């Protein structure tokens, strides 16, 4: 990987690889599809891409499980190879790069210097604030590294729910004091590509969008690109007609489940989860959780892990259990009894009256 060789446009890069114009148009069509843009926009994308500079991307992993990178490498369009060799210049990725140790650090520093103010920073994983030693790279704590690299970044792409919202490490009781990128960096544009992991197409799609139009995509209330997070799972779910008709699976093996009815009662969080799974789907477009018979767990939402359980329907609540209620009731009865007994002293019992 040559960090310094980031010159040239995407079009030139692809041509240099021997990709024909027809191949380039195909690339543009699938990229448009990826960005959830209308096919009618393909010519504009082609024009933009042909002249787009390859941006440098530095990828920092913090408290993460590599699931997001795994997801990215499963991305099938554009292929990761085309991303790395054609569309973007991925100059530092702890997991993917061949270089290790000081060489890797050096590559990152070179990329930062060469593209100061122009590179994109991709982050996966949350950042522990509880103890800086919880997660370090080359002896540098996550928070210090993030702040340093973020300084020269044009924009930050927080990949996965951990980087976007704190994710699993932040789940109650949050032992490491994990926070999201947006909790630490306030002065740079941040694109949250949440999900646990995010849809591979969402990762590449966002990168492609940034690259194509040279500007940040439109973001929702949580800083997520609307193209992918504009609607809820429920909004686009093919099982939604069952919800509207009130047809629900009651267990995972009942007739309703076999008929493919709505999984709301089995804890599906689709109605409050913003993501593109129902249309983009997973595993090369094979399916998505609901299509496979399991409710959405809400993985692209903040604090989803603390949503009172994957299988508790949305219309349930914490309620303390019968012990708490019983105690409240018992105290209530006691209070009422005291009130009644005190009242008895003001009331006149039988036979006792004024002279």
């Amino acid at each position: 990987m040559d960090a310094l060789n980031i010159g040239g446009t995407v079009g030139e890069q692809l041509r240099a690889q021997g990709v024909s114009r027809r191949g380039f148009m195909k690339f543009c069509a699938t990229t448009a599809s990826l960005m959830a843009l209308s096919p009618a926009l393909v010519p504009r994308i082609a024009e933009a891409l042909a002249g787009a500079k390859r941006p440098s991307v530095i990828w920092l992993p913090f408290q993460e499980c590599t699931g997001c990178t795994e997801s990215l490498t499963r991305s099938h369009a554009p292929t990761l190879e085309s991303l790395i060799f054609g569309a973007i210049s991925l100059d530092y990725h702890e997991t993917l790069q061949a270089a290790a140790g000081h060489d890797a650090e050096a590559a990152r520093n070179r990329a930062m210097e060469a593209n100061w103010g122009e590179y994109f920073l991709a982050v996966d994983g949350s950042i522990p604030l509880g103890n800086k030693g919880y997660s370090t790279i080359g002896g540098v704590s996550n928070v210090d590294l993030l702040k340093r690299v973020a300084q020269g970044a044009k924009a930050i792409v927080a990949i996965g729910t951990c980087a976007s919202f704190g994710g699993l490490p932040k789940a109650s009781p949050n032992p490491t004091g994990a926070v999201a990128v947006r909790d630490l960096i306030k002065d740079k544009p941040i694109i949250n590509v949440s999900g646990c992991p995010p849809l591979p197409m969402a990762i590449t799609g966002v990168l492609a969008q940034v690259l194509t139009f040279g500007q940040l995509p439109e973001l929702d209330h949580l800083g997520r690109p609307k193209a992918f997070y504009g609607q809820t799972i429920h909004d686009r779910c093919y099982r939604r007609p069952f919800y509207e008709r009130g047809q629900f699976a009651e267990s995972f093996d009942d007739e309703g489940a076999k008929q493919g009815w709505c999984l709301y009662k089995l804890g599906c969080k689709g109605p409050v989860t913003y993501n593109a799974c129902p249309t983009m789907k997973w595993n090369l477009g094979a399916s998505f959780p609901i299509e496979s018979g399991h409710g959405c767990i809400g993985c692209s939402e903040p604090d989803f892990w603390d949503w009172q359980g994957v299988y508790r329907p949305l219309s349930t609540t914490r309620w303390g259990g019968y012990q708490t209620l019983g105690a409240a009731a018992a105290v209530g009865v006691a209070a009422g009894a005291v009130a009644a007994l005190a009242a008895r002293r003001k009331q006149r019992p039988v036979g006792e009256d004024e002279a």
Partner: protein
Amino acid sequence: MSILEFARGPAFQVALVVFAFGVCWRLAGIFLMYRRFDRSQPRQHALIAGGVRAIVMRSLPPHELEKKIVFQHVSGYAWHLAYFASLLFFAPHIPFFKQFLGFGWPTLSNTVALLSGAVALAILLALLWRRASHAVLRQISTLDDYLSIVLSILPLLTGFMTYARILPLGLRYENMLGLHLLSICALLVWFPFGKLMHLFLAFPARFQAGVLLKRKGVEA
């Protein structure tokens, strides 16, 4: 913490504790109070049966009385039935009850459940208007009456808005669902302190009346 999480978590827990405590407090305070024991010779016996009968018969006033209150009677029946139909038989509500009871039950189709909710909502609004405009009702109404109607309307209203995704003020679905749950919390918190307690008190009061009237030999 989002509105929805707050509503599903601490808000609901607190509301339920206030509800349980308040209801028991009020019921115990009423029923442990000193009561006179009627030693008179009953004209008719089977006083308990008379009480039970009153519980039923007070829903069906005699013709001469009924014809004066047709509107109140019909609207009262209609909104209560419609309200409970949408509360108890709207499918997404079942898991809510199931978490307490451990079992669920068959549901109405969404169309029917929503329609009955709409009926309840329309009647409640009409009754609110009537309370504010009818001379007798204005005379005897208290803050409790208005508050209780409004707090009964809010879950219906927010429920509809949630289902139909009518989301004003830039609210999103999950906010509206949270508000729906919060409106139920508000209802639960207010419940023990106002007239909504008639859910628990109506039958005892009717029973008392039935026993008293049975003793006198008058059909309740």
